[in-house]
């Protein structure tokens, strides 16, 4: 078969093949992102995402959006600029959260028996939808970084508060006050995670008094903007087409 001969013989066949490729590419993208993003998120967000007693108003709110805007920015750079497909962020987040749920359910609960209400992942969906919508409507990665990145950081806490709030109800236990989340961390023994490793409620934002979550969210949003730019360029670089000279092949 010569290279110039077409692989398909009719338009219907071409459409069918193209559709098959769509599914294969999407599946590959989904699973590859799931793998890479999940590892990235475990290494950078790690314990903040694993445990309810790390989901605080300062560091979790700051760290999680910053380290998670990475892959969505890169994948958006590919899907939008090459295909005008505005689902780069959501496909990443759906993949990540599926991987996380598999891990938490099978490993944390199924293998090690940590209750699921202690080791559920963070919710990143609202930010992903906004990020995709902003990119689609603006068709500008600068605007997406600024407005979308901002939204990404700001909606993280509200998107998770309904899930964690019940665990922030206080309880008196042996003469000390805990939140239920603190008590989960104390009761469900993590031999490898001593209490001092827990980085929560630390920082220099004390001057803002009680309302630290919004302040942390704003800070996180600003950094998310910068990280979006950075990873947007990673995404571009990663999916650029290089042509090499035919001579000497």
């Amino acid at each position, binding site marked *: 078969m010569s290279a110039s001969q077409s692989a398909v013989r009719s338009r219907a066949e071409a459409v069918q093949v193209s559709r098959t490729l769509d599914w294969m590419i999407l599946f590959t993208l989904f699973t590859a992102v799931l793998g890479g993003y999940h590892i990235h998120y475990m290494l950078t967000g790690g314990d903040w995402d694993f445990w309810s007693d790390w989901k605080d108003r300062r560091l979790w709110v700051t760290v999680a959006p910053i380290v998670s805007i990475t892959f969505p920015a890169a994948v958006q750079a590919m899907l939008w600029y090459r295909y005008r497909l505005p689902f780069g962020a959501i496909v990443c987040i759906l993949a990540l959260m599926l991987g996380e749920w598999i891990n938490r359910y099978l490993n944390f609960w199924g293998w090690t028996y940590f209750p699921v209400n202690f080791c559920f992942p963070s919710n990143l969906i609202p930010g992903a*939808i*906004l990020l995709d919508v902003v990119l689609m409507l603006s068709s500008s990665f600068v605007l997406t970084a600024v407005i979308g990145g901002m939204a990404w950081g700001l909606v993280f806490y509200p998107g998770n508060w309904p*899930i964690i709030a019940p665990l922030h109800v206080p309880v008196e236990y042996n003469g000390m006050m805990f939140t239920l989340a*603190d008590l989960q961390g104390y009761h469900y023994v993590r*031999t490898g995670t001593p209490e001092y490793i827990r980085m929560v409620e630390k920082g220099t934002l004390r001057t803002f008094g009680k309302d630290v979550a919004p302040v942390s969210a704003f800070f996180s949003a600003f950094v998310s903007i910068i990280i979006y730019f950075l990873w947007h360029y990673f995404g571009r670089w990663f999916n650029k087409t290089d042509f090499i000279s035919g001579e000497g092949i």
Partner: protein
Amino acid sequence: MKTIKDKVAKLSFVALLMALTSAMFYTPTASAHGEKSQAAFMRMRTIHWFDLDWSKDEVAVNDTMTISGKFHVFAGWPETVDKPEVSFLNIGIPGPVFIRAGSWIGGQLVPRSVSLELGDTYEFKVLLKARRPGDWHVHTMMNVEGGGPIIGPGKWVTITGSMSEFVNPLTTLTGQTIDLEDYALDNVYFWHALWYSIGLAWLIFWIKRPMFIPRHIAVTSGKADTLISATDKKVAIGFAVGTLALLMYGMGSTNEKYPITTPLQAGLMRGIKPIEMPETSVAVKVEDATYRVPGRAMQMTLTITNNGDSAIRLGEFNTASVRFLDADVLEDESGYPDDLLAEEGLTVSDNSPIAPGESRTVEVTASDAAWEVYRLADLIYDPDSRFAGLLFFFDEDGNRQMVMVDAPLIPSFI
């Protein structure tokens, strides 16, 4: 075409493998049996656990047991390990097979990290509530920031019953009684399922139409603008507005349902009370100490001076949780783990009572397979070849005195 298909199929398979691997990548530490692999000097020259008591060997699900005892924070703490200024009284079990219902040092509840002082001795207690049936090795454990876990002795405990019966009831400060084991779990699933479906809906809206090749052709031929229709934009705005509305609704309804919440509690606890140890009236000088590699025995020449008013005898040498006893003086009745107990492991050249005011130089040999089994012999390969341990002396009335020893150790290979 076929080759491309094959390639993509191959790539998909690789990606799937990657995904599965990553999902399996992390499991929180399930095992706690690091005691033997821990450097010998870490076990000998940091925290000395003694007077340990595991209240039960067998416990039913929902029943409790305690591990209590004392630990001495060695004054000659090694330079290579951070001082125990930030320490956490942990428990070495394979995951939450028990829940830690309480832990105390010097009578103070210690759910968080504490500051310990070198040279002090503390009393501790850990209350455990059985959760998952099985045979578990239960260790005492102290985590030291910058030093890692310092694992104490472990003992096998059997949990009987069924985990499905386990409950963890608590009453909150807002007056609700809850079971922490599955509290708010439905809520977690509900919000995750709801948001995931919305995200999925957005994705499906786009993947229903032809994706990569036709759109790529359109983009490269300058027709990118035709790919997003006015309806698409309306739907997108709908999703964005819906997202914001749901966020606001979620915040509102949650704050209404849980008007009282507090931030996570954290912070170092200071001022932990040590035990007031009585002035010791026994003075011990280590003249020399050698470890005989082939004989698995440590030999010390000690000059013991009795400054008290009752005759004393040496009953026990305790190092790295291994207890060498002189059976004539002391018998263990606490059910101490067999593998760590050398009931007749201590030989004293002359262990007749040392009278008040008397000073005597004796040869003390501590020999047991435990030196090898627990890899304590490895300390001769340490950068600072020293040993340390606790000596327990008993007077005529059975009163006990604890003396710390810490001296260089010379290995002997013949």
